């Protein structure tokens, strides 16, 4: 029995497909860590692990692969996503894990020489985005670490199924990863994970990270969001259609619930006209996506929050502010367009800052006069921005990349690439990457 099978066998699968962690004991976490540590003591080499991962990712990129198909169906059912939305989201997530990228990572690991890396890593996965954390897990495995993953109760499927594929591709490689699931209420089991792993990587909100980071061996990826800045060169009649389709896709994937989800688009548009056109085109693109990638079932609290966002915009408009609300028939999508703040009358406190949306395809589009105004807009939230999509003429895009690069935002990309960061993405600022492969 391989390690992955053992881990799943340690739990009880309930009739509804859920997992019962009530019979899991601290000792089993310790045993799992010991097993992967033991498997990790056999030196497979970074190149072999990269090849194994490449083969596993290759089969997972195939939409007809049975394990992927079944996993997506199960996740879609339990999370309320449409299968089409999840298929596209997983495609985007797995896109960067090419053989070349994985081998390049292996080379980088090997070049790192004898640097001190943790040998056993624990991962506490989040439930909002299936597969979130796959970059770090792949890097950890290539770097020779053994891995124990605690999945979220709401999404226990993706990593368990991917690990099974890994074990099928290469039994020894598969033995280096175990997937367990327990409720976050079982703090005893989480403490056991932290006690039995050299480092634990936690994907959680700030409260969760704060509670875990009292432990010196925990690295946290807290709450972050993403944005886009579009220069005039990308809003010409020739380009605007393509750009807005890609931006809409960045909004829709994973229902806008991850750190790589687009919340706010800034359009460099001195008179606001091009920015308004961008908002209208994005609305049209989101409407089309609602057909091809039907929206998720929206949980009550999120729907109530979207209702609040819409009503605020609606009443600001009624009150004479130049904000415009574009909305799908139901709650399929929402676009709120705001011209530059200098034209607001009266100006509302907070209306001119970065907007974090409630998700589920709710996005703000704001005109900015120039890059300076854009910088001012995001200044207060720089530490919270994970990715920034940029588009414009070649020169404009270069300027934007330089401007954004200087702010320290970890991932700068083209529209449509937001959910596909490269393997060496400095997620959360790069602390994990530096720990595993050394700083650049």
């Amino acid at each position: 029995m391989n390690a992955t099978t053992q881990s799943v066998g340690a739990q009880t699968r309930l009739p509804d497909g859920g997992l019962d962690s009530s019979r899991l004991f601290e000792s089993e976490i310790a045993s799992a860590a010991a097993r992967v540590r033991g498997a990790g003591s056999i030196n497979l080499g970074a190149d072999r692990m990269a090849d194994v991962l490449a083969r596993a990712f290759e089969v997972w990129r195939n939409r007809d692969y049975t394990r992927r198909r079944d996993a997506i169906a199960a996740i879609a059912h339990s999370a309320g996503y449409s299968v089409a939305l999840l298929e596209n989201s997983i495609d985007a997530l797995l896109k960067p894990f090419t053989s070349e990228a994985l081998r390049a990572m292996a080379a980088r690991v090997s070049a790192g020489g004898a640097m001190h890396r943790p040998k056993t890593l624990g991962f506490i996965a989040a439930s909002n985005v299936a597969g979130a954390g796959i970059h770090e897990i792949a890097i950890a495995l290539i770097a020779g670490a053994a891995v124990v993953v605690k999945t979220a109760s709401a999404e226990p499927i993706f990593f368990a199924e991917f690990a099974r594929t890994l074990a099928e591709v290469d039994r020894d490689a598969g033995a280096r990863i175990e997937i367990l699931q327990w409720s976050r209420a079982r703090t005893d089991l989480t403490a056991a994970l932290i006690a039995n792993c050299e480092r634990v990587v936690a994907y959680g909100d700030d409260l969760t990270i704060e509670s875990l980071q009292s432990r010196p061996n925990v690295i946290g990826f807290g709450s972050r969001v993403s944005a886009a800045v579009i220069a005039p060169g990308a809003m010409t009649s020739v380009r605007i259609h393509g750009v807005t389709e890609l931006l809409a896709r960045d909004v829709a994937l994973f229902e806008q619930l991850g750190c790589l989800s687009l919340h706010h688009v800034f359009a460099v548009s001195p008179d606001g006209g091009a920015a308004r056109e961008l908002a209208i085109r994005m609305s049209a693109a989101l409407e089309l996506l609602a057909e091809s990638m039907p929206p998720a079932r929206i949980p009550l609290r999120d729907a109530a929050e979207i209702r609040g966002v819409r009503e605020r915009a609606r009443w600001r408009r009624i009150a004479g502010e130049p904000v415009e609300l574009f909305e799908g028939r139901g709650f399929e999508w929402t676009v709120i367009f705001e011209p530059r703040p200098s034209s607001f009358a009266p100006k509302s406190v907070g209306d001119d800052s970065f907007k974090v949306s409630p998700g589920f395809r709710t996005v703000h589009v704001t005109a900015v006069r120039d890059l300076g105004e854009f910088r001012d807009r995001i200044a207060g939230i720089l530490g919270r921005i994970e990715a920034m999509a940029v588009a414009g003429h070649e020169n404009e895009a270069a300027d934007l990349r330089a401007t954004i690069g200087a702010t320290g935002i970890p991932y700068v990309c083209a529209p449509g690439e937001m959910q596909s960061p490269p393997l060496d993405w400095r997620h959360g600022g790069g602390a994990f990457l530096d720990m595993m492969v050394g700083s650049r």
Partner: protein
Amino acid sequence: MSIYEQVLTFIRRPEPESFERLALEVFRHQFATVDVYRRYCEGRGVDPGAVRSVDDVPAVSNVAFKYADLAIDGAARSPDAAFFLTSGTTQGRERRGRHIVARPEIYRASAIAHLRTMLFPDARRMAILAMHPTADAMPESSLAAMVSWCIEEFATRTHLAAGSRDRVDVAAAAAFLRDCQARREPVCILGTTAAFAALFSMLRNEGIRLRLAPGSRMMDTGGAKGQAVPMQSSEVIALAGESFAIAPAMVINEYGMTELCSQLYDATAFNCPGESNTQELTKDRYKIPPPWLRVTARDPITLKPMPDGEIGLLTFFDLANAASVSAVMTEDLGWIERGRVRLFGRVAGGEARGCALGIRQFAAGEAARRTPDRAEAPR
């Protein structure tokens, strides 16, 4: 009889069977006389003549009061009108809402009538301690107006407003309560939950345990607003017993907001004699609206009323708002059971999201479960 006189008559002598008819008349009056509301309804394609049920009356979000004067034409210039401002939220500095109450006498009638039912069902006057300013000191506060009316209507000569615009004078409040205790005179204490937290804290720090006379009672409102660490309802009830010797059934939380001229109160064995005692120490209390206030929980997407027992956005039709807009949708979640209301919490606004949304949602859900009946009420 004018629409306002009809509403006043209803408040004085409620006839539930005529609520629907009167509500539709009030809606049509508001459509005709509240310009911005008429534009809102027209924007939604609503023909007032075609509206056959109060459930179909378009409700404005309570945030609308931040952006528009939702009052009958000319109200803002009326010398009789009262102007009440919301106090903002815990989510930071933002624009304050404004409710222009062109007919304050309806507001007063509504507030007093339901206070009488829910806080003074024994119809006795008593000493009143308000840990909040009165209307003369804070005219823009709807809660201050209620405090003043409550004192005028229900207080003996012994009363004190121990709050100013900036602070609660807990020392004066404690001294007042000591006097009442010495005279064995029952006292009614009114205030925000935050003000009670300050008073409880002071009494505890100084080791003071008062034993107020039987019949004493308290009403808190405002929930978490203004508190760094919000008190749970069960804590308020427990501390009222510990600090004042006030029985759980006499600790009554009010749910109200500047945008509504009517309020809801906890049902307890004191004001609802059939109410189960098992609810006295729990957070499972219902809130009771007056007969002139219809409450529904709405699906946030369709805005249709949810069936009894299912959670939705609490939406009100308040006849007492006759001179502004009666149909108001809040950002509070709750559910309805046989006309009674259970609060579930307030919708979060624009939280940061990221790889860990699921965990954050869990934390928010836990927080909501801990404070189901302490939603913030902007006043």
